């Protein structure tokens, strides 16, 4: 939030700014002055930004455009060098995507994921961050404990969870007769919640850091005033902390939706390819299975384009909401 306040003056260079500049004392050649108006005050910036601009153009903008193109054509992979007709098919791929029960199931799975992941992430990271945001012994130690899963490869962590949560694993050994049958990751009802809890656990440390950053900007006087009025710790959490870190809460919700739209490694490895019977499949997993395994990149691209649009709509909605609140 602090940073945002610093943004506006320099992010919007305008023509006005250019014209308002005082004329240089020595008369300048016209070419040079013209160059400055066309290229900006420091044209070297073009050279500095060029590699990154090229990267964006070649590896983001062009693929995005290609994705849209593929999604409107009948497209499949052929042997190298073979050229085939790729006729325009209009919205046929989109119709196929929207009427596919597997896609609907995967969207439902993401909904289940969000319903579990968002409240759990927001609640736990806010609670742990506000506990960390006080003079607690071993603060650095606790902080490190919390973010270690975040920095570790999901593949490595999935291996441990598979070990812990299989039918004869240590979790079921603790639960005894309470353990679900079939076990967590192969249970139709528990597979997606297990993925959601795994992702919550893995990412929580990062969100704790975000909340910590926000909490440090909440004026201490508010807490002092609240406790003077006899507010309990719980009450202060509700009345001071929660509103004070609202921006971060919206941000976390947003990031959770993006993560949900992104899930691949977890359902692919943790629940053996989105199983059982697609009950934990994610849209990206479907994109991989239909697009690359089954050679329907047109279908997969249409799904990808829809997801990109979905993410952008969510981001735009969040921006609007934030502007409304401010």
């Amino acid at each position, binding site marked *: 939030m602090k*940073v945002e306040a610093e*943004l506006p003056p*320099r*992010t919007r*260079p305008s023509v006005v700014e250019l014209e308002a500049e005082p004329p240089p004392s020595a008369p300048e050649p016209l070419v040079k002055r013209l160059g400055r108006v*066309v290229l900006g*005050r*420091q044209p*070297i*910036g*073009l050279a*500095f*930004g060029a*590699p990154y601009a090229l*990267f964006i153009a070649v*590896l*983001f903008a062009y*693929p*995005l455009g*290609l*994705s849209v193109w593929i999604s409107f054509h009948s497209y499949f992979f052929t042997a190298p060098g073979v050229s085939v007709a790729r006729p325009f098919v209009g919205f046929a791929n989109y119709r196929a995507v929207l009427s596919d029960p597997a896609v609907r199931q995967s969207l439902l799975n993401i909904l289940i994921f969000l319903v579990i992941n968002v409240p759990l992430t927001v609640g736990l990271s806010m*609670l742990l961050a506000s*506990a960390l945001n*006080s*003079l*607690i*012994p071993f603060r*650095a130690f*606790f*902080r*490190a404990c*919390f*973010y*270690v899963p975040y*920095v570790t*490869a*999901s*593949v*490595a*962590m999935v291996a441990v969870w*598979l*070990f*812990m949560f299989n039918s004869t*694993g*240590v979790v079921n050994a603790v639960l005894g007769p309470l353990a679900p049958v079939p076990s967590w990751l192969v249970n139709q009802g528990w597979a997606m919640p297990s993925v959601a809890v795994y992702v919550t*656990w893995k990412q929580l440390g*990062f969100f704790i*850091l975000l909340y910590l*950053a926000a909490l440090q900007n909440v004026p201490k006087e508010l*807490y*002092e005033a609240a406790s*003077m009025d006899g507010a309990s710790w719980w009450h202060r959490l509700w009345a001071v902390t929660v509103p004070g870190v609202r921006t971060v809460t919206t941000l976390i919700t947003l*990031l959770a939706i993006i993560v949900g739209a*992104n899930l*691949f490694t977890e359902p692919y490895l943790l629940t053996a390819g989105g199983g059982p019977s697609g009950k934990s499949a994610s849209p990206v997993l479907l*994109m*991989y299975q239909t697009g690359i395994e089954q050679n329907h*990149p047109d279908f997969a691209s249409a799904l990808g384009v829809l997801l990109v649009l979905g*993410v*952008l709509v969510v981001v735009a909605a969040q921006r609007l909401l934030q502007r409304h609140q401010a």
Partner: protein
Amino acid sequence: MTLATRSEDEVTVAPDDVVEDEPRTPRGWWRLALLLVGALVFVFPFYYMIVGSLQKTQNQSLSGALPQPGNLTLHNYSEVNAALDLGRALINSGIFTGGVLLATVIFGVLAGYALAQLHFRGRSLLFVMMLLLLMVPFQLLIIPLYVLIVRNYGLGNSYLGMIAPFAINSTAVFIFRQYFMQLPKELFDAARIDGANELRILTRVALPLVRPALLTAMLLTFIGPWNEYLWPFLITKQQRMEPLAVALANYMNTVQSTVANPFGTILAGAFVLAVPAVVLFLAFQRYFIAPNIGSAVKG
């Protein structure tokens, strides 16, 4: 009983200045207990990974959670090394990660500096494109990227193809930009009047001042490719090109009863994959702090 009354007294004696920051009050103890339980939940899988990777025969019962002196071995590590060629996989991970770090630190710093301190045509457009790229998840572009890199450019099974989509980490560019913007403008104007060119200003004036941001961004960039699974999995078709994350995941999907203790072997591989990132973050943990990360995502 006495303890409780004592702390009760403390609260009534000095209610307003100890409440928030005092761990000795009952509330403070609750907070510590909460953090302890949390830490246990977060660290136990790591502990269990090490214990499991050292078991001679698989023991998933509760007693297996403690190392049993009679059931300890390093055999799982040599087993996974034989199956995966750990050295080769680590080198592949290193090249993948190193390439991304190198490109990010060179081109990302240049772009971040240009976005923050230079005035040139197209800067706003570049900035908007960067924000868009930060929002759209890379995973949603796997189909066109696969078509382009593997099919059209023939870069399947190559380091270049592996690195390309990750080459310049946009979060890092964003962090660089934020930090360069916080530097006073007068500093740069003064250097310009002294006749220094922009590259010199960047390397001699600006970079030394943002060294912590550089480290934070490098740490964040490191975990991207080191932990990435989907893209290198798509693009590598030979085991000798696979980074460790991919090699281990493939092994997890295929290993059944070929080894005496499959879980132990997998966990040994997981440990080798986890250690570099964890060690790096613990060693540099003072750079991975709230304000640095916070500024990175508050755009």
